[in-house]
């Protein structure tokens, strides 16, 4: 995969979701609502999840913060909406490993999300990119759909 420049990362990946976030807003009714923040930069996410059986039926988020945290959360909701909770967990964990530099990231599993790998070059921003994903993992667990 060609490494994105910062400009490409922003222009081709981040800004689209930042300007027009998917699934932004409250989701009511919901099974789980969780608020998490990143103490370094003050980024905030409130995540709402509704399950149907073991599937993520609905997901939405409120939040404010830098473009990477908000865009990554938006991409996250788009990706996991409708997935079985177990598969959502797999994606989230794969993203985390990719961000930790532990794996390259699998295009099959991640699809467009692979482009988030561009953030790995900016270590301080990795926490921004992971805020939504970490909150998702907690929400799945709190919903009783996964165990860690």
């Amino acid at each position, binding site marked *: 995969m060609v490494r994105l420049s910062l400009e490409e990362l922003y222009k081709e990946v981040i800004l689209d979701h930042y300007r027009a976030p998917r699934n932004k807003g409250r989701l009511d009714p919901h099974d789980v609502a969780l608020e998490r923040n990143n103490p370094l*930069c003050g*980024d905030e996410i409130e995540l709402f999840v509704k399950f149907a059986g073991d599937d993520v039926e609905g997901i939405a988020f409120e939040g404010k913060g830098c473009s990477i945290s908000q865009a990554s959360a938006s991409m996250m909701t788009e990706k996991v909406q409708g997935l079985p909770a177990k598969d959502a967990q797999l994606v989230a964990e794969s993203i985390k490993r990719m961000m930790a530099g532990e794996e390259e990231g699998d295009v099959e599993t991640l699809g467009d999300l692979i482009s988030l790998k561009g953030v790995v070059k900016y270590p301080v921003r990795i926490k921004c990119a992971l805020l939504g994903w970490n909150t998702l993992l907690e929400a799945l667990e709190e919903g009783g759909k996964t165990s860690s």
Partner: protein
Amino acid sequence: MSMDVDVIRKDFPIFETPANGKPLTYLDSASSSQKPRQVIDRIVRFYETENANVHRGAYQLSEMATAAYEGAREACGRWIGSPSRNIIFTRGTTESINAVRFTWANQNVGAGDEVLVTEMEHHSNLIPWQLLTQEKGATLRHLPIDDEGLLRMDLLGEYITERTKLVALPLMSNVLGTINPVAEVAAAAHAAGAKVVVDAAQAAPHIKVDVAELDCDFLAYSSHKMCGPTGAGVLYGRIELLEEMPPFMGGGEMIREVWADRATWNEVPFKFEAGTMNIAQAVGMGAAVEYLEALGEDAIRDHEVRLTKYAMGRLEETGAIIYGPKDVSKRGGVVSFNLDDVHPHDLSTIVDQHGVCIRAGHHCAQPLMRRLGVPATARASFYVYNDERDVDVLIDAMAEAKGWFA
């Protein structure tokens, strides 16, 4: 005497290494300053020719180390107008303030008493007082600021009462740049029988600090923000208080006589220096004082006032919102701002690609961020090695960020 930044910059080796392939534009000295060769060399010389434990050995090497360490105490006292006896070495401002919490304040603040801080505190001058007041059943109050980031001195009479035991405030804000009228606050505090702790972390590197003029009881400052090494700082205390206070940490060197079950204490300031101290760092901090003395406090201040004015002007042109006093005579060279929709964190990453280091976030002042109604700000801060060209590089880089987000 005005400052020749091209000459000064040559003292700082860090500028020889490119940042992201560009010349380094370092605008985060309020977080930590860069170090001149003179300071680095002094530390090296200590380790290479004088290194030994201090106040212990009866051999010449230890005497040399002791002389270097105590010489640094002199210099660090001189820098704030104090005799060396009042100077306690610590790791930095944070430890200095915590030391007051665990000693004087632990003994003198009780249930029902009040501690007064301001709405512009750095967490290091807030959390210790939160913990103290919670533990003691005392009350923590916050002197408000106005919309320009100036202390509401008109409310001082309401906020300092006969229950106030301690007033803790910064001499200069690390977010707003505001220089506070500490002497006035101290007069009001003393009239009410309260003691005053001054957080001079931002002030000491940049403006003249004189403990006699401020008439404060304690004052804290850090080495790493004023061209000195990390791991060193100072707590100044009034002698009468230092004499009466219990020690902070227990250990070697702070004792006079020790029995199995009890001990008596060494004289001030050694009573507050337990164990092997940060010797080489104190020596380096002393060298930093000498470096800054050679540049001249007034010249440093003049230079920063000019540069801050220039930066505020250019930032305004970009449409950025600037926090803190408009009048540069009331503030230091710390400029916090926000640029339209560009989150400070994004801004910082983007300008970094141009070799520009600015700070983005809450600047260890979350309550102040809430007061300003923002989650975060960007911040550029200046020191002796910066000039107008650095501001220009920042402004150009900001234009690019703005373009991406437009």
